Structure formats: C-alpha cells, structure tokens
C-alpha cells in the first residue's frame, strides 16, 4: 500500500484549489464578447400559451436577443427525450409526451422555460425577461400522482391517457399470489417516499459559444457526464454533429444525479449563441434550482410481506405509483423500474416477488435520479415492512432479518439481480455490537425517567450499483451502454496522465484514480495527473453516477494499467536482457526478480519514446487505452442502526447515535469513503427528518427556498459511527463495490424505524418533522 497507494488515506490533491477559492466552475469561465441570459419561466403550473409578445423586451437596454420556442423549432432543434424505453405489462411502449426546450403552446409546471433573453448584463436580461408579455389560458392542475391517475383528472399530455406513462411489472405474479395463499402471517404497509430537491451547492450553469469561423460549438456546463451530453445534444437534439460540439464540464460543485441530465438551458444557450452571434452564459440562481432541477423520489407504495409459521418470508407484493412530474427526464423511466424493483429482495431469500409500478405525469418539476436513484425507495419499502413485521410477530427485528438472510452465493433473486457475493451476518453483527443493541431497553427506561421517548431502528440494506453491464441494460430498454473508458499515458520521462471518462464533481477522483497508478508502478502521486471532463481531451466515456466510478471507471484504468505494465516489462526485459516473466515493477524501479539488475521507471519510459533500442517489431510510445464493460452490477450492503430520543412535548427527534456497518468491497482511500458515507447519511437523514417538498393545489412550489426547505445542518446530525467490512466484489479486478450512494440508501428506514419504535405509532411520514412526530404521538394516545 505505502503512504500513497491503494488503501492509503491520502489527502485530496484537488482540495487546494477548492478550499482557497481557486476552483474553476462554469460561472468562472469568461470568453471575449460573452453576454448573459435570463429565462422567462411559467408562473402557472398548467396553461395554454395564447400569445408571446417580445417587442417591448427587445427594446430594453442592453438586449441583444429575445428568442422563443417557435424559432428554436424552426431551426430544427429537437425535443428532450427519455433515453430508456420501458414497456407496460400489455407490451405497449411508454407514453412519452413532447418536451420542447422552450414551451410553445402549453406550460406544464411552474418553472417551465418559455423565452430566453440575451443581454449585456444579467440584470438587463432579467429586466427584459420581465417585460416579455405572455398571455395564458390557465388549465386545471394536478400535483399528486395518485390523483392524476383518476378519471376526471386534468390531462397533461395527449399521449398519456389518465396521465399514465407506463404500467410495468416485474417478477412472478402467480407464484407470489400462491405464496400469499399459503401464508401464516401477512404484514401490510402503505409507504410514501417523499419528493426531494437535490440542492447541489453549485446551481446549474451553461456557457454556450458558437464559433462561426469554424462552424463549431463549445459548451461549458455543469454536467456529470460531458460525453453523454455531447452524444445526446448531437444525436437527439440536433444542436450540432458530434465532431463540431465540444462539451467541457470543468469543476462542478456537486451533482448527486441532478446534473446527469441534459437540460433545456444547455441546449438553448448553444443554439442562442449561434442565433445571436455572441457567447451566451446562463447561471441559475437558487430559486431556479428549486423549480427546474430534476427532483428525486416521490413514490406512493402499498406493500405486503408474507411469512410462514416459522417466520420465513414466502413472498413480497409491491404496488408503486411514481410521480414523474411534467415531463420525462432523460433517465426517469429506469429509476422506479430497473433501479428500484430489482432490489426488492434486499438481503433476504425471498422465493416469490411481484412488483407493479405505474409512472404518472403531474404538473410538478420532472423527477429523475437523485443519490440512490430507486435503491433508497426499495430499501425504504423493504426495511420498513420488515421492521413492522417483526413488531407484529413480536420477534427481534435483528433476528427476523437474520433468519431470512441469503447465505449462499451467487444468489439469483426473483427480480433479475444475481448477487455475486456478500456477508450480511458480518455487517449485522458489527452494527449490533457497535450500537450496543442488546443494552437498548435499559437506555429506553432511563430516558423515560427523564420524560423522553427512546427508540432504535435497523436497516439491513443492499443496493446495486457500479452500473452497469451494457448488454443487460440494453435488453432492459437502455438506449446507451454503461461501460467506462480510460487511457494511461506514460510521458517520456515517466510522469503519467490518466484520461478517464468518469467525471469528478466531489468524489476525489484526481486523488483516488492516481492512487491506482502509484500502487502499480511506485510512481509518486504527485507525478500522476488525472484528466477528465473535456470531450476534446478525453475519449468517450459515460460519466459519473450510480456509484460507478470505482467499480467501472477504475476497472477501465486497471485494464489500461495492465497493458502499460505488460509493454513496460517487455521493454525492460529487452534492455536488461532478461525474461519478461522475471521482471517486476516496485517502488518506481523495474528490476529482474532476485537480482540487482534494475532500471528506474523513467528510463523505461524514455526508452519507449526515444525508440533507440526497442524489441523488434514494437511500436514506440508507452500509452494504452481500455474500455471496461462490467459483467454484473456490484452489491454493496450493510447494516445501519439509528437510536433516537424524542421529546414528546415538542416532537423533536434527537439522533443519539447512528451506526453504519457497510461492505463496499475493496476500499481505495478510506478517508474519501468515510466522506462519502457521511454525505450519504446526511442526505438520508435529511430525507427522513427534514427535507419536505410541497406543491400547493395550484402547482406553486411552496418550498422554493431555504426559508421553507429544511437542509440538514451540522447541529442536526450526530458524529457518525462508521465501519466497513471488505468482501471483495468478484466481478471486477480491484474487487470494488462502490460507496457513493449507500449512506442515502440505508439510513432513512433506520431513522423512521427508530422514531416509530420510540412513539409506538407505526404510521409516520417523511420528513418526520417535530410537528409530524408530535401529531403521531397525539394520535397514538
């Protein structure tokens, strides 16, 4: 390992610029002649546009252009699409409505963009946007997915009757019904997974530059996947052919999924740049972020779990209604289907599962992947119903789980996923011990003496990440493959550049990816640079989301390192007149094993590039690329335990302790993994206790600022007690499972299980705010 290799707690190389304010974000990009854009957005949740009058706006000071959807369409710019085809049970394809980047005849949610104004300054652009006169004919509004499905609800897209996008299912309905018929006990639970606003620290921004001399576009944008942006903008949105479109995602201040999708603003700024002849920069403000970033979650679920007389699970039935918002975002269809229902077996050996998911349009912001993307929803259903079942069956929640654990691998679940490896007893045992689960009842009694209610809750979660095997997801409807790419360039005097298709927007790749090369060749970390985020510099890659940069991104790097190592050894063997098989590379030296014949690493590199004495037939250079397509998802999992103390007078919940015992497979940098877990826990606890997204009946977003949307603060969170076990993943060279989303996946059920235990009322919605908890306490009296 050394101090800089795999497993080392190396401080992050990228932090210096971030902490000293020298990061280079999209808003820091300045080009000559650059102008500023503002969008006029719909104030109505649902309305026909009967007229757009831009004449007054065009005359305002500093205005260069005021452009509408009509002009956009006339120039052949395409509608936004969802890139993952899902079919309903009856075989019909999903009912995708049209999403024009700038609305032309109908607006469908508050925030829907209608007009772009380009002006000398941001203030002038905003002033002119306010002067655009749009006339609307308001239409009835529906914000609840459950209500939107009912007959008589307002129809949002002509393509989706009853606002139903698809009615999909997975698993074996007959086998599941048969299992239930034999059951000794059935637990039922209705669950809502609350809508979340992503709130990355940096709002979205785009700088679109059209170069008329070269007939070429450059797009600086806040993206988690610049190559995907280029692909989609070229192939589907007709912005430009790929070779005439360069997309650069520079430093990006967090994404959590919200910056995967290609948004209207990005397309429009590029097009507007050509139209107006000036570079066009748009920087969203926090209000726009709330209104128009893709939201997360928003499921309503009915679940039933059947047990035999021995408390072994016989079957699971799940019906979910998923709110998609006003338009289908790029990955939206995959989130409540193949990223959700395929995890419903959890850590348990469940013989029969059937899940039905209905996707529904409403007059709210579009919903798509957000940290965990489908897996938090699955864990919440399963871990809440397991805990509920334990209470009904009057058995220990830990032992009920243990009784049903999968112990033999590989394990084929009834919902497509084939778990390769795992040790669920290990993480449960570690968690129970760390939390002193056995001693809880005493602590509950002591708290009761002080007039406080203590509760403890478990969550034994599993998730599927490292997305994904391309053929597998292709067969399930994905429009892209989910491999990753890398190129390892050894320079002439031995320093190294690693070009990766992954993107780093907080994950620390500039450090952890370099650790791989340090481990392999002993080259110091400082001599290794990671290049990412620019489609001109880096070969095509699929970007960062779904906790894939370790399992997939690093695996591509490893494959490229393998090739570089092989060639370096061939060169060294030739120079040292030894057998290739006897060459070893260690601590920056290339030596013949068992002898003192060696060369420093840089000399092998130099030999490759001077090419004075290379093995016969060998090309000069020391640079190798690789594409890695995973053979399976990876399956991190673990046990989260939350202990709370509730003040019955006010409903305030204090988290006394939070234990996370996780298995992420091989860990490259424990410090960074801890950071990921902390962040995921903060977001999961945020969902459980604090973050609530509210639209009123007219479709106005009431929680559109931090005055009303409660973000987790340090004072809301305990010091986390986290630990890891390492069961290597058998399906990738490093044995990595991934860790970026697990915290947000495992924690919400642990928190809600704890509070419901404390207050003796299992009927509790997220976020469990003081008011919600207090009312539940009153209701249970």
């Amino acid at each position: 390992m050394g101090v800089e290799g795999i497993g080392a707690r190396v401080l992050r190389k990228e932090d210096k610029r971030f902490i000293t304010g020298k990061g280079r974000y999209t808003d820091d990009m300045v080009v000559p002649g650059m102008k500023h854009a503002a969008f006029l957005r719909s104030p109505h949740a649902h309305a026909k546009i009967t007229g757009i009058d831009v004449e007054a706006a065009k005359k305002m000071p500093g205005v260069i252009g005021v452009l509408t959807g009509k002009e956009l369409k006339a120039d052949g710019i395409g509608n936004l699409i969802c890139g993952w085809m899902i079919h309903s049970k009856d075989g019909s394809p999903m009912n995708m409505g049209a999403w024009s980047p700038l609305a032309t005849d109908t607006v469908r949610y508050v925030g829907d963009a209608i007009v772009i104004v380009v002006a000398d300054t941001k203030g002038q652009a905003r002033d002119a946007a306010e002067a655009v006169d749009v006339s609307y004919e308001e239409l009835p509004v529906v914000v609840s997915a459950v209500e939107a499905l009912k007959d008589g609800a307002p129809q949002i897209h002509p393509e989706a009757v009853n606002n139903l996008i698809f009615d999909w299912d997975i698993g074996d309905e007959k086998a599941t019904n048969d299992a239930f018929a034999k059951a000794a006990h059935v637990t039922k639970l209705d669950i809502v997974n609350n809508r979340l606003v992503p709130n990355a620290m940096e709002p979205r921004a785009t700088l679109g530059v059209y170069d008329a001399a070269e007939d070429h576009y450059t797009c600086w944008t806040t993206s988690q996947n610049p190559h995907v942006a280029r692909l989609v903008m070229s192939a589907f949105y007709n912005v430009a052919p790929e070779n005439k479109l360069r997309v650069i995602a520079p430093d990006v201040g967090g994404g959590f999924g919200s910056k995967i999708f290609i948004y209207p603003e990005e397309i429009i700024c590029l097009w507007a740049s050509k139209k107006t002849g000036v570079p066009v920069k748009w920087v969203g403000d926090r209000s726009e972020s709330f209104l128009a970033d893709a939201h997360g979650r928003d499921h309503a679920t009915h679940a039933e779990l059947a047990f035999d007389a021995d408390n072994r699970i016989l079957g699971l039935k799940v019906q979910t209604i998923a709110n998609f918002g006003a338009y289908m975002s790029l990955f939206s269809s995959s989130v409540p289907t193949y990223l959700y229902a395929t995890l419903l077996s959890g850590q348990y050996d469940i013989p029969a599962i059937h899940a039905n998911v209905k996707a529904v349009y409403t007059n709210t912001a579009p919903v798509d992947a957000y940290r965990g993307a489908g897996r938090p929803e699955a864990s919440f259903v399963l871990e809440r119903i397991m805990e509920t079942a334990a209470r009904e069956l009057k058995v220990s929640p830990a032992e009920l789980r243990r009784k049903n654990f999968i112990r033999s691998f590989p394990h084929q679940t009834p919902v497509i996923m084939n778990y390769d490896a795992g040790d669920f007893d290990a993480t449960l045992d570690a968690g129970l011990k760390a939390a002193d689960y056995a001693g809880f009842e005493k602590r509950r009694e002591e708290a009761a003496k002080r007039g406080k209610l203590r509760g403890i809750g478990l969550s034994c979660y599993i998730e599927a990440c490292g997305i994904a095997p391309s053929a597998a997801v292709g067969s399930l409807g994905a429009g892209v493959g989910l491999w990753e790419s890398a190129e390892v360039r050894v320079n002439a005097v031995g320093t190294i550049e690693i070009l990766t298709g992954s993107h780093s927007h907080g994950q620390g790749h500039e450090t952890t990816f370099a650790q791989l090369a340090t481990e392999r060749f002993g080259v110091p970390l400082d001599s290794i640079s990671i290049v990412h985020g620019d489609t001109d510099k880096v070969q095509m890659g699929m970007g960062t989301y779904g906790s894939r940069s370790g399992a997939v991104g690093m695996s591509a790097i490893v494959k490229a390192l393998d090739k570089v190592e092989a060639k370096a050894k061939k060169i060294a063997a030739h120079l040292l007149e030894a057998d290739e098989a006897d060459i070893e590379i260690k601590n920056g030296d290339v030596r013949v094993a068992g002898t003192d014949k060696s060369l420093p690493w840089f000399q092998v590199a130099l030999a490759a590039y001077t090419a004075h004495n290379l093995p016969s037939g060998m090309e000069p250079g020391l640079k190798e690329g690789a594409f890695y397509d995973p053979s399976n998802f990876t399956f991190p999992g673990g046990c989260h335990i939350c202990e709370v103390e509730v003040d019955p007078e006010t409903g305030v919940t204090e988290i006394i302790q939070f234990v996370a015992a996780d298995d992420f497979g091989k860990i490259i940098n424990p410090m960074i993994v801890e950071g990921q877990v902390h962040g995921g826990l903060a977001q999961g606890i945020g969902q459980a206790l604090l973050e609530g997204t509210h639209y009123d009946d007219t479709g106005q977003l009431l929680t559109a600022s931090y005055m009303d949307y409660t973000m987790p603060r340090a004072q809301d969170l305990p010091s986390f007690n986290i630990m890891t076990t390492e069961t290597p993943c058998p399906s990738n060279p490093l044995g990595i499972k991934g860790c970026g989303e697990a915290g947000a996946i495992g924690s919400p059920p642990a928190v809600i299980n704890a509070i419901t235990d404390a207050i003796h009322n299992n009927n509790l919605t997220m976020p469990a705010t003081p008011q919600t908890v207090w009312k539940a306490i009153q209701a249970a009296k």
Partner: protein
Amino acid sequence: MYETQYHRASSVEEAVKLMTSAEDGKLLAGGMTLLPTMKQRLASPSDLVDLRRIEALKGVKIDGRKVTIGAVTTHYDVSTNEELAKICPAITSLASHIGDPQVRNMGTIGGSIANNDPAADYPSALLALDATIITNQRSIPASDFFVGLFETALEPNEIVTAVEFVAPDKAAYKKFPNPASLYAMAGVFVARSGTNIRVAVTGAGENGVFRLADAETALAGNFSPSALDGLIVDPDGLLSDMHASADYRANLVKVMAKRAVAEIANRPM
C-alpha cells in the same frame, strides 16, 4: 435587485429630509430583511437611506435598572453587553439567538421592531418588558407600537431612535425554531417584577406579538411551570402553515411558556 439610489445619512434630521424627498424611499439599518427582499425583486425602493453611521443611534446605556438601547445597535452588541447581561440576561440571550452570526453582526433592534415580522424575537421581549419605543417624534409604549403583521404605529418617515425599559427582577425567553428558517414558530418571553407578571408570545399569532393573559393570571397565583399545566392556548387566531398548524403551535406556546418559567424558577438568585 432593481436599481436604487443609496444615501448615507449623518443625522436623523438628514435621514428625514432624504426620506421626504425620495419617491419611494426605505430606511436601511442592518438590511438583513430588506436586502434579501430586494435581491428577490420583491421590493424596489427608489432610495435607500442608510442609518448605520449615525452614532447617536448606537449603544446600550444603563442607569441603575433603566436600559436604553439605540435603534441601530446590532444584535451582536446587545448580546455581548456584559452590564446588560448582569441585569437582564434574558434579552442578551434572546439577541444571541437571532438568526446566525452573520445576521447578528448586521441586524439591529430598531430595524427588527420597525419591520415587525411576526416571527421576530424582539417584539415578545419588548411587550413583556413593557418597553417604550422612542422615535424622532414621540414615545410609544410597546403595547401600542406592535399593531399587526408587519405593521407598527410608526407614521410615514417616523424613525425609531431608541428602545427603553426597566430591567425586571427576573425574565427568560424560550423559542421553538422553524426547522428551515430557524425563525420563531413560538417564542415566549416571561418577565416578572414583584407581583407584576407579563408573558408575551411571538411567532405564533395571526396578528403578531400578543400577551398571554391566562398564563399571567395563573402565574400570579403560583409562579412555577406546574401553574401552567391547565393552560389552554386557543389555536383560533394562531398562524398555520406547513411547518406548524395552529394546534401544534398552540402546544408549542404552552411548552415554551412552561420552559421559560422553569428557567426563571431554576436560576440562582
């Protein structure tokens, strides 16, 4: 923010002149409410008249138990005033929990009460302390000053210059914060001087700060938290929003009142 004309007043008289000649002027002290409102384009004063350099409006003066706080005194300065903390720790504590450090460094008592946000902390203190609000024209008792939601007895271009009160024997303030904004959803200030007991509630009323007469009566008989066990706070007339329904808010008022009394009862002499 829309365009606005910024002026620095060097005296109250100059401030009045500037306001009178402005088309639609606003006085600016800490700006902790006004500036964010302007940034969201929800306010567009033609002129801003900045009072922060008028030294006569700043500072805490103590004469025996009589306290005078200049209108442009920051929350930070109130919260860290050692002399004031000795005779009325409830108000220094209240000031130390307004907003966050950045807000406390800028926000002022005059600005806060002139705005009369129903969730602001100072109105409950001033009503419970039976304070007098001194302006450039007159003196107004607190019970007359706070008229309604974002409404005070101030005439156009009347400027608050100071706040005056006599420190009570004992006082305490307990606030239950909105989880998002951390403003008071129920803030109760209890003040006791001899047999005179005043309980004022902020954050909860549909019409702004109010006195809780039933609590005052109960405490007059027995100054202890248990005296309030039977207190019924009427949800009718209380604010109701997604964070706290009127019912829940009524419960919070009662709980905060009890806790304020408990703090007084437990404090060493």
